[in-house]
């Protein structure tokens, strides 16, 4: 290799590593638990405000005023300095040293300004700083600081206890939206009666706009790894992100099929318009939607819209290689004599009145022998096909058949606060469906997650996401010490993370050996640490050590023998201790 290209490949490697390190460093993590009625401290408010300032948003600038668009401070600074917009800087800094330096400049100016604002409790110095250093007009930055001031005031006066007492006196409790604060500061003040959305408004125009680049990134990622588009994919749809984003995941599903929502004369999303194939510039993807019971309930009208989209797309007169939906529906009808109803069933959920895939229960309670049982359970629970009018029917054979074609599984993640090892529902659904596909298609599908939280669409593989979660949370002293400051509940929280990580081994075999090695090292082999955990919550400590042994016992972690014997020893010690406690 010539010297110059060696150098440039080295530079590329450095930039790539740097980007990954920054991704870890800047990722937002919870650093503790909330105590009802207590306001967050100074340091936490500062980090939060920095993030709030980094997103453009439509909000009421002050109470009672109308809603208007407030730009992100990062974009204002980038613009003031004559640079590309911040999203571009983020994206290009992965491969370009100059963009990286520009990005760092923008970020540090924003940080400085927010720190000044927080310290002063007023915007003047912060705004002047940005004017002087980044040519941002006071008028423009002031609007951002007004939003920050409102967020800060509402964070500092917690109304939760008073609100609870009002409710206990049978008084009216104000409603409020539900979301992450960074995503939507209008969730403040807390202490309110959280509501969902009117399903007929979903997906919103903004959601439709934001869906396109995520879908493009997802398909591009798959194409760069396999050389082609996926014909069939399975997508997990939940209520939570679709409420917070007014239906981004719904819009993604529609976009994958190459349609967009059409609003009727009463402004409700009740029908779809077909995006002509030449505008779409790619084939229509066949999307099998596995839907949570909660989504089914909260978005009944949307279920009908998704079903309608499938019917419309399957009826288009387009060649097989440009319309995979129609291709598969036609083939089923022709080859097997299936009815249109059967051939076009794509929206699956639980039996009415039931919730959950139960895969999490099976994993948590170690009730499985072969991992295929986890995928089968997913299918058992989710094999109810939903059609027009909200009607459903058990259709196990249809779901089996549909999943047998799937090459890619996917879920949209919208939250900075809830990651895939924080709760058991992610492996229950995305893990469950992936395992079901593996048996039915004969190969493990590619598993992707999108991250619509950062400015700029990002799609990661499951494995990348697990590593990121592990590095930023489970193994990060800032995270676990934050949790441990809560004692009993903090230990339980750490144990949940280990167990949820294990859930990804069980369902998707997606956890590297080093992750378990490091977890064992950090929490069990470090005797001081283990002693702390046992002191605070021996039950959770025992459960965690037991889970690591289970991972090894099931062949999901090829642990070194020396590590294993230490784990066994610790486990027995904990058993003895707990028996002593309860005797």
């Amino acid at each position, binding site marked *: 290799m010539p010297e110059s290209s060696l150098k440039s490949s080295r530079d590329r490697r450095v930039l790539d590593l740097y980007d990954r390190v920054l991704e870890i460093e800047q990722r937002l993590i919870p650093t503790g638990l909330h105590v009802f009625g207590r306001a967050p401290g100074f340091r936490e408010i500062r980090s939060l405000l920095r993030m709030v300032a980094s997103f453009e948003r439509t909000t009421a600038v002050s109470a009672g005023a109308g809603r208007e668009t407030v730009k992100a401070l990062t974009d204002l600074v980038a613009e003031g300095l004559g640079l590309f917009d911040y999203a571009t800087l983020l994206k290009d800094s992965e491969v370009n040293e100059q963009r990286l330096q520009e990005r760092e400049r923008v970020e540090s100016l924003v940080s400085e300004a927010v720190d000044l604002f927080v310290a002063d409790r007023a915007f003047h110095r912060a705004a002047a700083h940005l004017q002087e250093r980044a040519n941002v007009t006071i008028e423009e930055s002031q609007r951002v600081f007004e939003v920050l001031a409102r967020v800060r005031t509402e964070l500092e006066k917690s109304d939760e206890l008073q609100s609870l007492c009002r409710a206990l006196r049978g008084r009216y409790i104000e409603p409020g939206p539900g979301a992450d604060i960074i995503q939507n500061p209008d969730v403040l003040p807390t202490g309110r009666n959280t509501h969902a959305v009117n399903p007929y408004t979903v997906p919103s125009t903004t959601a439709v706009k934001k869906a396109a680049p995520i879908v493009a990134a997802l398909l591009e990622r798959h194409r760069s790894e396999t050389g082609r588009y996926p014909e069939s994919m399975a997508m997990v749809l939940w209520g939570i992100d679709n409420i917070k984003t007014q239906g981004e995941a719904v819009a993604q599903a529609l976009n994958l099929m190459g349609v967009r929502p059409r609003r009727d004369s009463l402004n409700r999303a009740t029908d779809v318009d077909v995006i002509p194939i030449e505008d779409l510039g790619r084939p229509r993807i066949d999307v099998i939607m596995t839907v949570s019971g909660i989504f089914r309930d909260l978005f009944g009208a949307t279920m009908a819209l998704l079903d309608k989209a499938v019917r419309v797309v399957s009826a288009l007169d387009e060649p097989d290689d440009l319309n995979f939906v129609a291709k598969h529906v036609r083939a089923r009808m022709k080859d097997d004599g299936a009815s249109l109803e059967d051939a076009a069933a794509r929206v699956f959920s639980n039996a009415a009145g039931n919730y959950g895939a139960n895969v999490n229960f099976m994993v948590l309670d170690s009730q499985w022998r072969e991992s295929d049982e986890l995928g089968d359970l997913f299918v058992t629970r989710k094999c109810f096909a939903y059609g027009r009018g909200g009607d459903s029917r058990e259709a196990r054979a249809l779901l089996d058949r549909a999943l047998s074609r799937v090459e890619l599984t996917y879920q949209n993640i919208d939250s900075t606060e809830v990651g895939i090892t924080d709760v058991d529902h992610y492996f229950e659904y995305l893990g469950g469906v992936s395992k079901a596909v593996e048996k039915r298609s004969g190969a493990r599908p590619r598993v992707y997650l999108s991250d619509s939280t950062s400015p700029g669409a990002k799609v990661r593989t499951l494995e990348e996401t697990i590593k990121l979660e592990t590095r930023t949370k489970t193994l990060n002293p800032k995270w676990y010490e934050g949790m441990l400051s809560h004692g009993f509940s903090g230990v*339980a929280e750490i144990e949940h993370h280990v167990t949820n990580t294990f859930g990804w081994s069980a369902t998707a075999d997606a956890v590297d050996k080093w992750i378990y090695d490091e977890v064992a090292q950090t929490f069990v082999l470090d005797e001081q640490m283990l002693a702390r955990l046992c002191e605070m919550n021996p039950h959770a400590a025992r459960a965690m050590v037991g889970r690591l042994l289970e991972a090894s016992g099931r062949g999901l972690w090829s642990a070194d023998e020396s590590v294993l014997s230490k784990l066994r020893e610790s486990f027995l010690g904990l058993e003895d201790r707990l028996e002593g406690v309860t005797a």
Partner: protein
Amino acid sequence: MKITVLYVGGSLPAPLKQAERDINRKHKIGLELALHNCGVSLFDKAWDDAARDVATSEIVFIIHVTDHENASRIAEALARGNHRAVIAINCMPELMRRTRMGKLDLAALMRSRGEKDESSPAGVVRRLGTWMAETMRSRRGSTPTAEAKSGAKHGGFAKYSGLIKRLPTILRFVPRAGKLGDVKNYLLLYSYFLQPTPVNIRSMILYAIKHYAPGQSRLRIPAPEVMPSEGIYHPDADELFESLSSYVKWSRTRGRKLSRDNTAGLLLMRPQIISKSRRHYDRLIRAIEEEGIDVIPAISTFMDNREACRSFFFHGETAAVSQIVSLTGFSFVGGPASNDSEAAVEFLKEMNAPLRSMVSLDVQTIESWEASRLGLNPVQAAMQVSIPEIDGATEPFVYGGMTGSASEPIPIEDRCRKIARRLARWNRLQTAPRESVRVALVVFCFPPGKGNIGTAADLDVFPSLMEILNQLRNEGYEVNVPRSADHLRDLVLDGLEDGSNSVAHVAYRMSVDQYRALCPYVDDVEAEWGGAPGKINSNGRDVLIQGIELGNVFVGVQPTFGYEGDPMRLLNAESGAPHHGFMGFYTYIEKVWKADAVIHVGTHGALEFMPGKQVGLSSKCWPDRLIGELPNLYIYSVNNPSEGTIARRRSYAELISYLTPPVENAGLYKGLASLKETLDAYRRSASESEREQLFEAIEEQAALLNM
């Protein structure tokens, strides 16, 4: 003579059927009136029947049809037909445009936007054809922008309601003969429709027959009866009350004092009242009075209920009711066409009275609701539950609705009684001295196991409980507050375990006899889990209730689903009943410990995910049985609106949101921090040889970090 009426809702079928009988008896014209409720999309046979009736009718009425699917198919069917008259009232624009009466072509009129004087008769008809779409267009989702709000206020609807008021005057000046005859006819039909008394509905049908069916021009038809547009209704009174004071006077003669803290303000739909389709209202009103609560049943001012509230729920500046119960199924401000939740919240906050919103099954039948595992169909769920929730409405109960056989809505007896009892419970919370109020705080234990008692998403539960207990004590509740959060946890975790499989302190042993005596659902639980007390939360003789008593506060541990150690249960596609321990726990709280309210602490528990309808629960649904009559407050993470909404709908919870934990940048630690330093050094270095060395170091560090 065949007329088809495609309608939506519960107020029209009864007067229409009566009209058919009366007309045939008196005029002997062989009238066949075909009725189809088009509230939800009609498919298969239901649609075939409707389409056949439309095709074979001389005259077609379409009233209130806003379902997209129905609208487009009806519009097509009408385009194919050859009717003597098609009369659309308050429908989607594509249906309004199908109105054809003699020379009146509403499509042409609607196209002539801006050309006609607004106050001319034809201009009025055009306005009637377009107001709804204009009102809806001005709405942008649940959080209207300032611009959209002003649109809603000053746009379609305001003009519409002004018009409605002027309609009688306008009609007087429209000549009956000539070009404007058909315009006048449309306005007259509309006037009958606006006052849907049985007589007016009969007149509306006769009027259409007289003018558009052959050989009937000699029919004599009375002018529209005019009914008050506002007022207070009571089933025991002969007439509507036009003012609160006259209603108060009348109530006193019945021994009803109407004191503020014991009076519920009800909002009723006007068409149901004046069309006499109100049996469901009557029963609910009486059920509430039977619980000792007084009522003010006011006619809803439809698009803006603040007006009805101001007129009838206030004595001057003082609120006259302690709770508002909306039976309209629509948003508080904005009606069916839009929702101005900010205005609603502002008003309700000021009034400080909670809003309950109940559902009448108007676009599905009680039979279909009973049979359905889903409960409310998606159209009703969106309109009558999702939107009122945004105003802060709670307790989304079904109280009545249409049936397959009766032509008017009827009450659902057990639901009416339950609603009434819950209102009484809420009333007690408002008025009882704090030292007598008993509160059950329920914590969770998931995944099952002692290490997880009192865990919840993002919440440190025991310190949170301490904050709550202290606050309750300060407010005058009788509560023994433990020394510290650790002490509280020890009390809950430890102590007697009874040699049983319970994970926490046992507060009470409920004998099987007591459990059977207090819980009417034991047989249903046994069908699923075998004889009581079963194996979970049991010592073989009694149901064990986990928790501790701290004066008038009980801190209980909710039992788990009961999947642990019972793999077969997980594998069912559909779940059955909760186990005896679960059922017994809530039986204990309500009927043994006699709580006045329950507070669930943290995101989230299992009660609201028990089998049953999704929303609009019946007495057979498990969450409805478990929560019983208890007011339910739920401390819930603000970032989880989806599971929280399930709790609101299925366990009648009022959520009190809590802040998510502080977030910070993850930062770097150990090897990651040094890797960044080396990377920085590489980026800064100008010396090629140094960069080479640094690069080697980088690769070594990266390998150690598995990067």
